[in-house]
């Protein structure tokens, strides 16, 4: 039998230490290792950019403090621009954590031989679904039964309303699905593309003669592709956060 090593093998979850309690699976997989690494990196980013004695920021910022302040300003501008009420400021820690989390997850996946958590649909879908449920709870709590006016834009005739409400319902249900699939598909497609081209370079380097000289070409193509992947990692984290802010605005101020 021929054994095919597919480029999708890099997304496998490998248990490092298997811990089973009857039916539940608590094993330490490579996912868990990455998650603990994220906690370490994010925590150290915010701890090491402060003064050691009083743990406050410097007045003249040094390098890592500029990064932290830049992220702060970006998310704050996002919230103030998109949510048109004072209540939007309550959601700043949530969006900031979401942004840092997805950014770190995407960036850690770029390290060779590492594992990208956001390239699994279950991770991004869980994130988007819980955010969606939370936003609905916020909307119902603020507006009560007026929550259903989200599906009926004002000033439409009756016949048009009959047509419009199912369409609005479908687009409402589609929100968390599209949010999660966007992140998942970008990450998975990018990593699979990198793996395929690296596979070309690897097979070419196993031959002799003139074909061996050609193996530099896929390696050179990999460099701008890696830059593209880096850009996509940053952009996808930004887009996830800004869409969260837009959905929050939709729910706090009904249209």
């Amino acid at each position, binding site marked *: 039998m021929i054994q095919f090593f597919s480029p999708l093998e890099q997304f496998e979850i490998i248990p490092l230490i298997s811990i089973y309690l009857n039916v539940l699976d608590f094993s330490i997989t490579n996912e868990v290792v990455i998650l603990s690494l994220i906690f370490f990196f994010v925590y150290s980013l915010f701890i090491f950019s402060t003064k050691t004695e009083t743990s406050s920021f410097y007045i003249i910022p040094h390098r890592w403090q500029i990064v932290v302040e830049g992220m702060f300003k970006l998310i704050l501008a996002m919230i103030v621009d998109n949510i048109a009420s004072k209540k939007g400021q309550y959601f700043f820690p949530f969006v900031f954590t979401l942004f840092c989390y997805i950014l770190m997850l995407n960036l850690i996946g770029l390290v060779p031989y590492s594992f990208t958590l956001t390239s699994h649909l279950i991770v991004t879908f869980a994130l988007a679904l819980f955010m969606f449920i939370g936003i609905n709870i916020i909307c119902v709590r603020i507006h009560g039964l007026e929550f259903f006016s989200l599906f009926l834009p004002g000033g439409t005739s009756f016949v048009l309303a009959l047509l419009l409400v199912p369409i609005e319902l479908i687009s409402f249900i589609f929100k968390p699905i599209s949010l999660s699939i*966007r992140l998942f598909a970008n990450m998975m497609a990018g990593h699979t593309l990198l793996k395929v081209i690296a596979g070309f370079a690897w097979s070419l380097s196993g031959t002799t003669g003139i074909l061996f000289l050609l193996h530099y070409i896929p390696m050179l193509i990999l460099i701008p592709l890696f830059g593209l992947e880096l850009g996509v990692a940053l952009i*996808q984290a930004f887009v996830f956060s800004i869409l969260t802010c837009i959905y929050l605005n939709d729910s706090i101020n009904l249209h």
Partner: protein
Amino acid sequence: MLKIVCDIFFLILILLNTISCKHNTFYFFFMLVQAAQKLGAGLSTSGLAGAGIGIGFIFAALLLSFARNPSIKDDLFRYAILGFALTEAIALFALMISFFNFISII
């Protein structure tokens, strides 16, 4: 003429094998389904054409609006990147269907 006779002969042979279940004939259908899956995977990438046009449209609008008002460059670029990511998502929806066909599930 000989070709037609040979074709009919092979068809009758396959039919007899399928009916009698003497040899494992399901490999024929297995391979046919796999071939159809690969074909479908290739066809579903035709959705990327529209997404390509959409991305070009966004950056064309960025250039025009930058020419009108170069002082708000950063804001314009931010909105362009947001629009690019949203349009790219549609392209990747089509590509996902292609991937799910390509890894032969059967």
